[in-house]
């Protein structure tokens, strides 16, 4: 109990119980915070999920989120169409073709890491300068999609690379042994066995596209209509949410829109953990 001048026979350990309490309460606080945020929005928002919110056309009375939802899907598809081929091809080059210790590989990795760290607003400004102003695409679906494609490129690249690395070399050797060329081996043997890993990367990318706001305001604009073409301005659900919450008039609708957005994220997370489970299940099964 009291600090003896000489090495005490029995030292009371204050640290351990305090640390134990700190660790447990930190974990508790973290869980409570997330439950509170999600729970609060669900409870406040679900009662306001009115049919008018899902009307086909947006106007300032019903503040319908349907166009924004459709735009989100279009935006996701567009950015994936651009990013997935580049991301997978980069990963294929890094894993299957590049030689060990290749200088270029180092530079590519560094570039991807840099891209992964750039804040979305910087992407937004860059997209605005390159696509909207320089290429004269105006605020458009295409400009937004391309900006987001650059943003999710490192995500897809990294997960695909990991998935390809996880394919055992015996697969490749077996394929070569049967007389298949490099290209055939990559497309018929390696890629199919890496599909779940690639999919999980794509889902991560979808999550980022769905949640993105800052990169879109100055590239895709905020027109709440279903676009007629790739050069029309669009507003995704997150941007819609941002604009709506800025208008004090539509606080209830903002809650309801937030609910839809959270449900979307929950769905994406569920799919991703389902794929992850399938992947580990397959590995354990074999």
């Amino acid at each position, binding site marked *: 109990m009291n600090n003896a001048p000489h090495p005490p026979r029995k030292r009371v350990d204050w640290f351990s119980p305090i*640390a134990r309490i700190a660790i447990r309460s930190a974990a508790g606080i*973290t869980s409570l*915070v997330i439950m509170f*945020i999600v729970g609060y929005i669900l409870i406040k928002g679900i009662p306001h999920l009115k049919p008018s919110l899902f009307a086909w056309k947006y106007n300032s009375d019903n503040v319908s989120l349907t166009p924004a939802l459709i735009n989100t899907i279009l935006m996701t598809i567009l950015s994936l169409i651009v990013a997935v081929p580049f991301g997978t091809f980069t990963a294929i080059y890094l894993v299957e073709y590049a030689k060990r210790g290749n200088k270029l590989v180092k530079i590519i990795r560094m570039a991807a890491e840099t891209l992964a760290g750039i804040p979305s607003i910087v992407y937004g400004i860059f997209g605005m300068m390159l696509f909207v102003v320089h290429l004269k695409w105006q605020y458009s679906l295409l400009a937004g999609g391309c900006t987001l494609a650059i943003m999710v490129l490192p995500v897809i690249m990294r997960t695909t690379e990991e998935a390809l690395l996880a394919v055992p070399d015996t697969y490749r050797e077996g394929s070569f042994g049967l007389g298949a060329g490099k290209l055939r081996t990559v497309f018929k043997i390696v890629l199919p066995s890496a599909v779940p890993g690639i999919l999980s990367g794509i889902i991560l990318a979808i999550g980022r596209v*769905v*949640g993105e706001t800052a990169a879109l305001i100055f590239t895709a604009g905020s027109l709440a209509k279903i676009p007629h073409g790739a050069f029309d301005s669009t507003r995704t659900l997150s941007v819609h949410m*941002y604009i709506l*919450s800025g208008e004090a008039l539509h606080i209830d609708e903002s809650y309801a829109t937030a609910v839809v957005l*959270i449900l979307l994220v929950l769905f994406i*997370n569920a799919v991703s953990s389902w794929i992850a489970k399938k992947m580990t299940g397959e590995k354990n099964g074999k």
Partner: protein
Amino acid sequence: MQKILEMAMKMIFLIAACVSILFVILICVFLFANGLPAIGEIGPLEFLLGTHWKPSSDIYGIAPMIVGSVYVTAGALIIGTPLGLLTAVYLARFCPKRIYKVIDPAISLMAGIPSVIYGFFGLVVLVPFMRELTGGGKSVLTASVLLGIMILPTVIRVSESALRAVPQSYYEGALALGASPERSVFFSVLPAAKSGVLAGIVLGIGRAVGETMAVIMVAGNQAIIPESITSGVRTLTANIVVEMGYASGLHRQALIATAAVLFVFILLINLLLSLLKRRQKI
């Protein structure tokens, strides 16, 4: 024929791989080509150290925004780091499997929630709460708390995997020497995972500095150096979004220059991160 196809595809893969390099270069070129002339016109010192931002009278000093970003990020770290680190310790070492099955997806959800939702939550819950508590609703403190929450998943995930990567023998060795489980973790496992944990914190810094939408909604956005933690603040990111919509001429270029400054900050953080990662491997 087959040979040509093989070569062609190899070239295509190589070209695709160079796309990310191309875009890093393009981003640099566009930001600096559009931003540097403005910095030159305003004067580098006046731009970086000037404490007044008055676009209407062509005075562009981003010092308040730099200070704002630093304050808010520091606040987020003060809140997010201890909470995240201790949670990571719990998840990596003390969490029963049954509870882990609940917390793990909750943290994934936390990482997946869009920043507008965090911002909206901050606006409707945190801001009124802080107004009651401190008198200042949209403030450095509010933004720090919200950002502290937002960086939690990053800090937790990276620290947790760093803690898990420490060999079990470290933990068991400390236990065998008579240390309690808590002491073993804090004095044997945690020091061994130091680089990884630091990498998580640095990633958290990157996320806090770059966060835009959530901060705009709760920080107040006054372009002055905050006097206390209860006064409003504007970050570098907020400066761009708030004014870009209507800016033109030098004002617009000054905003792009703000993005360039932000970009340089992020590059420095990335550099720090890669240094930490290199140390972790050795």
